[in-house]
């Protein structure tokens, strides 16, 4: 018997013994028994998951966790948040340390398949962009040939940058700096002409770190797709469904005009879609294995998607992001909930 196949068989058994214990509904049962959802979040990302000065988590990713907890357990505070670094996040999810990862994670094919993950619908469409000083006189990224570019190493940001410049036959000189605060300092001190990272990051850096935000412009080109959303591990389809439809419920609520403020009023709505969403017409909760008030509880806790967006990253927050492609499909964005019926 060739040595290789023995080794392969051994490896397969080794992998199986780790993967097999995940049974259907294991996660749902564990969450229900524990009375709390374990949610992996970023250790600190402004507007998405960051603590306030009393140590309470807030942010868009955090609100998604609270919505899921409210839908499953009826209590948006029944969440145990585990802050995770970029390196830790997938191990923590695979090993069962967290039930769901809501941590600005880009949905890609390899992650969806070979890492054994399932991506729930996107909660924020991001993409890599460029910021330049206004007095550089540049209005398009295609005019940036020969520029020095400040970039953080390690993530796909650096790779996208090189790809974009090569594809457009332009030269650039990277200034690679590890720490975000040092990148900021370098850019605003004029050490490089261009700053590149995710567009949401650029907007917040311009709003909060720039000496005078009006002196800097973000170029219209978005050079990469970074769809961010909650992630669960393979093995519990019911839990995946719950996470998926909780996100859809938040988006659907915005489309139907259901907010955390008019929620009780809407319970008396004659619109059949609203009735189904809020459980006035029963059936949806039962199909998910939850109480009929699942969507009602989630919306009561954190509001609809639009409210979550505006509260955490919208134009009236320090990040000051426009809805843009994160607007509803009815207003020209990409947020589209599958029909809840």
């Amino acid at each position, binding site marked *: 018997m060739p040595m290789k196949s023995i080794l392969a068989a051994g490896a397969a058994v080794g992998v199986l013994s780790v993967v097999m214990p995940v049974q259907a509904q294991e996660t749902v049962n564990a969450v229900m028994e524990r009375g709390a959802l374990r949610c992996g979040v970023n250790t600190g990302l402004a507007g998405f998951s960051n603590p306030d000065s009393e*140590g309470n988590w807030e942010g868009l990713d955090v609100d998604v966790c609270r919505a899921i907890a409210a839908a499953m357990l009826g209590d948006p505070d029944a969440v145990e948040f585990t802050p995770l670094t970029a390196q*830790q996040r997938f191990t923590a999810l695979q090993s*069962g340390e967290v039930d769901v990862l809501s941590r600005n994670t880009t949905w890609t094919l390899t992650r969806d398949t070979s890492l054994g993950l399932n991506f729930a619908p996107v909660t924020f469409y991001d993409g890599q962009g460029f910021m330049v000083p206004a007095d550089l006189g540049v209005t398009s990224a295609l005019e940036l040939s020969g520029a020095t570019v400040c970039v953080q190493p390690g993530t796909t940001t650096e790779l996208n940058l090189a790809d974009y410049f090569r594809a457009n036959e332009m030269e650039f000189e990277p200034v690679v700096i590890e720490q975000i605060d040092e990148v900021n300092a370098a850019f605003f001190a004029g050490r490089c002409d261009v700053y590149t990272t995710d567009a949401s990051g650029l907007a917040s850096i311009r709003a*909060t*770190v720039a000496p005078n935000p009006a002196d800097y412009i973000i170029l219209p080109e978005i050079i990469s797709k970074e769809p961010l959303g909650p992630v669960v591990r393979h093995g519990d389809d019911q839990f995946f469904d719950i996470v998926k439809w909780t996100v859809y419920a938040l988006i659907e609520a915005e489309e139907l005009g259901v907010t955390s403020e008019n929620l009780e009023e809407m319970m008396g709505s004659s619109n059949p879609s609203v009735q189904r969403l809020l459980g006035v017409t029963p059936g949806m909760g039962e199909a998910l294995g939850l109480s009929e008030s699942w969507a009602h509880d989630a919306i009561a806790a954190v509001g609809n998607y639009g409210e979550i967006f505006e509260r955490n990253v919208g134009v009236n927050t320090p990040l000051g992001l426009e809805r843009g492609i994160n607007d509803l499909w009815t207003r020209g964005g990409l947020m589209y909930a599958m029909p809840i019926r």
Partner: protein
Amino acid sequence: MANTDTFVPLPSRPPPRATSGFLGWLRGNLFSTWYNALITLLLVWFLVELIVPIVRWVVVDATLFSALGTDDPAAVCRQNDGACWAFIAEWWRFILFGRYPYVEQWRPALAVAITIGLWVISCDRRFWNKRLMYFWLVGVPVVYILMSGGILGLTEVPTVNWGGLPLTIGLSTVGLTVAFPLGIFLALGRRSKMPVIRILSIAYIELIRGVPLITVLFMSSLMLPMFLPTGVTIDVLLRAQIGIILFAAAYLAEVVRGGLQAVPRGQFEAADSLGLTYWQKTGLIVLPQALRISIPPLVNTFIGFFKDTSLVSIISLLDLVGAAKQALTNPSWRGFYQESYLFIALIFFIFCFSMSKYSQWLEKHVNTGTRR
């Protein structure tokens, strides 16, 4: 009577102006030659250039705590050029205690006070007896119960919410107190005449010293969970703590070995000729001398590890440094790096400086017989 002339000395005159007093000191020490004068002037210019902006930033242009009364204190800070002490006023509790539930933060505060109290009495020679052991045996469980709760009407706080100063002090206290005896055994093992024990000790010490602490922490945080079945998890804090203990033990072992080798050979031989057993010889003759010699490098290692605990923030445990960094991710308060780093630097300095001062005192008091 003969007129014997008695010698009456003239009253002594003051030394020449140019060599006495402040001016003389200046002249002798700072302006003795033209190039010394030049260097002095350059340094004075440099200091002024350095200190004036710092004072201006820290005091004159700073935004003080009063800004907190306004609607948006961060915006008030951004309008001023100086330091934003309002940031510290708003966030000091978060930096000190991390995400520990806000209303329960008296518990980590008390736990830190008890731990520091234990260290202080451990430093006092009057307590160097059995009583000290009882204090620790009572103190450590009390601190643990205070932090984790779950009994006596205290709400349970999972370790994932521990942070800030209690984490820094806890990791280094437990790490060093457990690693120290382990280190002594490793040092003795490395000098043992029994080959298996010697080889195992050497292998352990060299393996651990051959890798950075950051990789040990990464291994314990990322690799370990992969070998455990899904759903079975070891607390991340415990994993980091074990990593720190294993790492510190290897370093302390080498420090202790240095002390052991400095004990003169005659001491071993004298102990042997008295017919003492190995453990009597080691415990009564060799170790007391070896550890006394090792005080400066031991304290050096202790201080080093106290600061190294901040590496746990790479596995998302938020010690002082991690908590300070996390505070800066709040959208309203981004960008106040200098203030927060200065604040934690001050806290670290207080602890490390006290340790180093105590070690100087200790050296003086236990080395009275052999001081050179």
